[in-house]
């Protein structure tokens, strides 16, 4: 080496950046010369194929290869072999091959504990619907509950217990894990054992925790929810002394005033709320409630409002007090509480629409006792107290339900208690922390530094289904059973207890979390058995619950009855609403500085507080308002964006109290000025291939010392950061000020709307816009027997998107991923179109579910060169996957753009073939073909259900009826907005909607004669004109 240097160093300075060898670095001449030749000297010298290789020529080799392949093909394959049929050795009695079984159970995806009906085929759960007999959710279940089936088969579930080592995790067996943990727990002595968990809604689980406490007396339970109604409940206790905020008779309210309350979106049991709300949006009974929404962010409730006003959350208290003062002035109520407020000043100062406020005041007077004012979870306690007082004074107390009231089995830990826990950890007073299926590292405010605190705890045990931020920092990770593999019960309101039963035995080496605790209580790892918790549950019911029921039937009968039904009704009286304590209102908190920007942190509509972030179906479910998938973003108003000089997709830095986050901006029409709304639940780490790195972790902005409320922070700031970030939206965002796109949906009569007063005056006003039926060049087909059709009542459709997920599950629709959504290649058969009209500050929002319209004269059918899409005699537009060659002419010719093309075999395309896992194949609906690359697909009106109904009718020997079939979207719709049936069945309920005076078809002027009727939305406003 040294000689190279000596030779060349003087004239050649080595290039310090890139070199492959020292010779090159010091520019050895031989090396430089050799670099110019493709082969080194002598490499090709001896190459003589005839000598150095075997004597077979290429031609001969290929001939031999071909012949041997042909012989092998003939000799080894029996082309007639069709495989095997392997029947059961002993067939389970309840299984009929090819027929589903349904089991009633309880959904534990959120604390609402809805009753569910799990459809299983040959022992595999394949679909979840609401339990029709359950008194709370009445056969409906939200998108998260539907998509929960994907969590069960998630290939990334932890499949055996893990123990942390220096580099990662080791697999260990349950016995070892149990004995280690039991040893650690019994050494705790007087040091605290902290159990951190979400809401506990199971009475039997509560009993397990009590047993745990008596075995380990230093145990303390911290139950938390990132989003909760603690402000509302503590306000209730201050106002009325005891109890919980009651359930509301939404269906009887004539006027609903929602103050930053998303009761149709994420607050409370939204399935029940939506159903009750939509009951009084009925075109047949012609009874309409009126919804006023006064809010800061555009929410699902906001888009359904009849009147909507935008104010910042800090002003809500002054707004309620001003209303109170105005009503007092008008002599409707008498109170001196609000004497310091004036509605006219408030309206003036905050630039509210005077007319709308007047309507609100007049309605509150006119419907005194039949109205309800409802404040949102994110508002602080004093707003809730003011609202309680106002409702009380207006006599709206009789809209509080008296048949049932919410029950808290265990109070949520306050922020102070959580701070205390962290303090104890840092002082070394904690012996062990046990996380029960929760994720506090992600959920707790980042200034508590919980993640690093866990390092100071001698033993951290996390019970979880899959890896997450908390599990990553635990000594032991114990995998727990999924909802559908577990036993349990739930009680979150008086009068009903729900039962949860497993429908499949654990897929992996997992255990039920209650059984794990019971094993530790017994101090012996040998105690565990598959039936441990089942026996405990039954015993608890027999000894504690059964006697209190004073039932006349014996326990076993009652138990199996309740198990069959999925719930048990009990004779329990609801709480009494006492007299209000007017002095509970603290007026000193009223003056809040509203300068600067307000940050509002909300729960994600799709992934909740993050616990569904690993679920592709939910990630790809478009946001009900913005239609954005796979991301969260900072939503700001049009004016705020202008003043910041930012556009959609620009990155901005949001900071509050020194906590900072950079994320993309999205201009949301209808948001209050000077507010930023960010949805939490995204930006997960260590959480598997689907959840990790999706969106931004805005939990970092949470503080343990909030000044206004846990989710609203005043004095935030927002600055433009460098760069852009693409948000994947399923709908174009047209400019409001472009005359070509503005209100196009109204001009083309895609959306037809009216008002209730116009409808009362002129019931057939919609029919005036409808074009006359045109002649067709084709002879129309005569549908003499069945003809399927759908009617969608836009008065009831809220735009929540539950139908989309139901359709995905039923029809094996794949998840495509954000990159494909950006290219508009999402595969959902059903979409919800959202249209804005009016100004970007105060838009009117219309939603419309859009699916294949099954046109009688379908434009897609005429252009298919291979006749892959045809019409059936019962009116269905059929899609034959085997014939389809993928020309995409049909999609091009479809005026509704409802056809979806498989650009890839999306199962191997999405995130490294995540969906190709053999586990996920268990989830497919066996009655629906799994489509491959290169074929077109679209809504089939759930033809598999129609054919099933036909075979059932043939079995009974009766003709099929329109009511025999319910499509998946129809079953899922919480408000029953979707009707399906026989267009020729003139005496059916469906026929009323099909021929309704408010009914219209979309793009009717094209004369394609669709079979989906839309019932025009009526807005319950005071004028006849919109």
């Amino acid at each position: 080496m040294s000689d190279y240097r000596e030779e060349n160093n003087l004239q050649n300075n080595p290039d310090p950046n890139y070199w492959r060898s020292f010779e090159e670095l010091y520019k050895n001449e031989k090396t430089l010369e050799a670099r110019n030749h493709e082969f080194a000297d002598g490499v090709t010298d001896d190459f003589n194929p005839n000598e150095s290789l075997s004597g077979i020529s290429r031609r001969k080799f290929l001939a031999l290869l071909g012949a041997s392949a042909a012989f092998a093909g003939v000799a080894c394959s029996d082309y007639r072999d069709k495989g095997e049929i392997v029947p059961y050795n002993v067939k389970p009695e309840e299984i009929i091959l090819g027929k589903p079984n349904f089991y009633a159970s309880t959904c534990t995806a959120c604390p609402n504990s809805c009753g569910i009906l799990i459809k299983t085929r040959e022992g595999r759960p394949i679909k979840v619907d609401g339990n029709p007999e359950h008194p709370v959710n009445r056969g409906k279940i939200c998108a998260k509950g539907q998509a929960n089936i994907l969590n069960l088969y998630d290939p990334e579930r932890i499949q055996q217990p893990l123990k942390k080592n220096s580099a990662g995790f080791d697999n260990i067996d349950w016995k070892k894990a149990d004995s280690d943990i039991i040893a650690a727990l019994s050494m705790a002595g007087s040091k605290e054992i902290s159990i951190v968990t979400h809401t506990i809604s199971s009475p039997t689980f509560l009993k397990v925790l009590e047993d745990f406490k008596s075995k380990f007396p230093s145990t303390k339970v911290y139950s938390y929810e990132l989003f909760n109604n603690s402000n509302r409940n503590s306000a209730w206790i201050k106002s009325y002394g005891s109890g919980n905020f009651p359930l509301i008779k939404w269906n009887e309210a004539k006027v609903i005033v929602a103050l930053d309350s998303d009761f149709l979106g994420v607050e409370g049991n939204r399935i029940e709320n939506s159903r009750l709300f939509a009951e009084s949006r009925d075109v047949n009974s012609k009874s309409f409630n009126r919804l006023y929404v006064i809010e800061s962010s555009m929410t699902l409730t906001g888009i359904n409002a009849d009147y909507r006003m935008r104010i910042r959350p800090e002003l809500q208290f002054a707004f309620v007090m001003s209303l109170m003062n105005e009503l007092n002035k008008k002599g409707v109520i008498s109170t001196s509480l609000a004497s310091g407020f004036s509605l006219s000043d408030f309206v003036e100062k905050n630039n509210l629409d005077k007319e709308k406020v007047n309507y609100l005041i007049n309605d509150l007077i006119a419907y005194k006792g039949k109205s309800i004012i409802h404040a949102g979870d994110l508002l602080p306690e004093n707003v809730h107290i003011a609202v309680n007082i106002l409702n009380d004074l207006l006599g709206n107390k009789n809209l509080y339900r008296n048949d049932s009231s919410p029950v808290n089995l265990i109070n949520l830990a306050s922020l102070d208690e959580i701070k205390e826990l962290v303090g104890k950890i840092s002082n070394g007073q904690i012996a062990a922390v046990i996380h029960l299926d929760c994720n506090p590292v992600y959920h707790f405010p980042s200034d508590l530094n919980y993640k690093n605190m866990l390092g100071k705890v001698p033993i951290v045990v996390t019970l979880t289904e899959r890896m997450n931020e908390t599990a990553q920092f635990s000594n032991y990770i114990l995998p727990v059973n999924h909802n559908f593999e577990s036993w349990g019960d739930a009680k979150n309101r008086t009068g009903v207890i729900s039962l949860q039963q497993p429908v499949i035995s654990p897929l992996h080496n997992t255990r039920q979390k209650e059984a794990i605790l019971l094993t530790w209580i017994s101090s012996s790892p040998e105690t565990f058995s598959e039936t441990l918790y089942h026996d405990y549950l039954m015993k608890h019911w027999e000894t504690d619950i059964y006697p209190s029921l004073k039932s006349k039937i014996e326990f076993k009968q009652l138990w199996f009855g309740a198990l069959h039904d999925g719930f048990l009704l009990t004779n329990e009286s609801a709480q009494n609403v006492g007299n209000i304590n007017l002095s509970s209102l603290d007026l000193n908190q009223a003056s809040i500085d509203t300068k600067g920007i307000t940050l509002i942190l909300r729960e994600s509509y799709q992934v909740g507080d993050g616990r569904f972030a690993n679920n592709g179906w939910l990630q790809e479910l478009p946001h009900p308002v913005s239609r954005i998938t796979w991301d969260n973003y900072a939503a700001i108003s049009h004016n705020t964006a202008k003043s910041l000089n930012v556009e959609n997709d620009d990155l901005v830095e949001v900071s509050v109290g020194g906590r900072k986050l950079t994320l993309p901006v999205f201009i949301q029409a209808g948001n209050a000025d000077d507010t930023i709304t960010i949805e939490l639940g995204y930006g997960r780490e260590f959480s598997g291939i689907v959840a990790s790195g999706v969106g931004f972790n805005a939990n970092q902005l949470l503080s343990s010392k909030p000044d206004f409320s846990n989710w609203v922070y005043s004095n935030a700031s927002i600055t433009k950061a460098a760069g852009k970030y693409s948000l994947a939206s399923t709908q174009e965002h047209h400019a409001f000020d472009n005359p070509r796109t503005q209100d196009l949906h109204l001009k083309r009569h895609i959306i037809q709307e009216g008002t209730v007063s116009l409808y009362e005056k002129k019931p057939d006003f919609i029919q005036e816009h409808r074009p006359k039926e045109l002649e067709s060049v084709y002879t129309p087909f005569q549908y003499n027997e069945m003809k399927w059709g759908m009617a969608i009542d836009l008065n009831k459709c809220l735009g929540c998107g539950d139908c989309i997920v139901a359709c995905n599950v039923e029809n094996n629709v794949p998840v495509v991923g954000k990159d494909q959504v950006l290219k508009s290649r999402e595969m959902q058969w059903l979409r919800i179109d959202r249209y804005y009209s009016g100004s970007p500050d105060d838009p009117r929002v219309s939603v419309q579910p859009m699916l294949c319209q099954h046109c009688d004269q379908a434009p897609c059918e005429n252009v298919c060169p291979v006749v892959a899409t045809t019409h059936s005699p019962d009116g269905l537009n059929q899609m034959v996957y085997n014939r389809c060659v993928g020309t995409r002419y049909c999609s091009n010719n479809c005026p509704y753009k409802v056809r979806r093309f498989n650009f890839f075999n999306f199962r191997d395309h999405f995130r490294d073939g995540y969906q190709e896992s053999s586990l996920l194949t268990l989830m497919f609906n066996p009655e629906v073909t799994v489509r491959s690359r290169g074929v077109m697909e679209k809504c089939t009106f759930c033809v598999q259900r129609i054919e099933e109904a036909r075979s059932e009718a043939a079995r009974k020997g009766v003709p099929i009826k329109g009511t025999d079939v319910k499509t998946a979207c129809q079953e899922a719709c919480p408000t029953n907005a979707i009707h399906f049936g026989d267009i020729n069945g003139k005496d059916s309920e469906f026929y009323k909607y099909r021929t309704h005076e408010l009914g219209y078809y979309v793009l009717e002027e094209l004369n394609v004669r669709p079979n989906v009727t839309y019932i025009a939305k009526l807005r319950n406003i005071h004028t006849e004109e919109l």
Partner: protein
Amino acid sequence: MKKSLLDYILRNRLPLSVFVIISSFTLTYFISRPERDGVGYTPVQPINFSHKLHAGDMKIDCKYCHTNVDKSRFAGIPAVATCMNCHTIARKDRPEIIKLTGYYRDGVPLPWKRIHKVPDYAYFNHSVHVNKGIDCSACHGEVAQMEKVGQMNSFTMGSCLNCHRNAHDKFPELKNQIKKGPEYCSACHR
């Protein structure tokens, strides 16, 4: 010798055409013969079960074993336990029954060779056909006479449509009870 047009035709065109015709005919014949569709396929089964004995001589109803045939898409192959309903007592000493008992005792499912198959994308429904009164033998042949079951008819889409279109010719005895079978796509494909 002067080359004429006729010469060219005789020398080149004719043999080529004859070759193409013969080879297409042979190929078509080979591909379309019923054996290609599995007709006559009679595989060796793990248990030498005789339908002739059970269904023919002893006249056990098809539905005794194929219990799902009137309830579901699938006729259902009986579980080993069904066989054991009788064979815990009957003919316990025969070699095939000893083999069968072995499966039952060990809890191993019996891997029967599949004979009849429609592709996965065709959703044939047994119950509809049986409940409309169509006899099993219409598709499966006289199984009751078969010592060893084999495929008797072709199970192609053409065969399905042949019956669906000419239902009344095929089943004159059911003329008053059945209509023509559906011919639209989504009756079978979805």
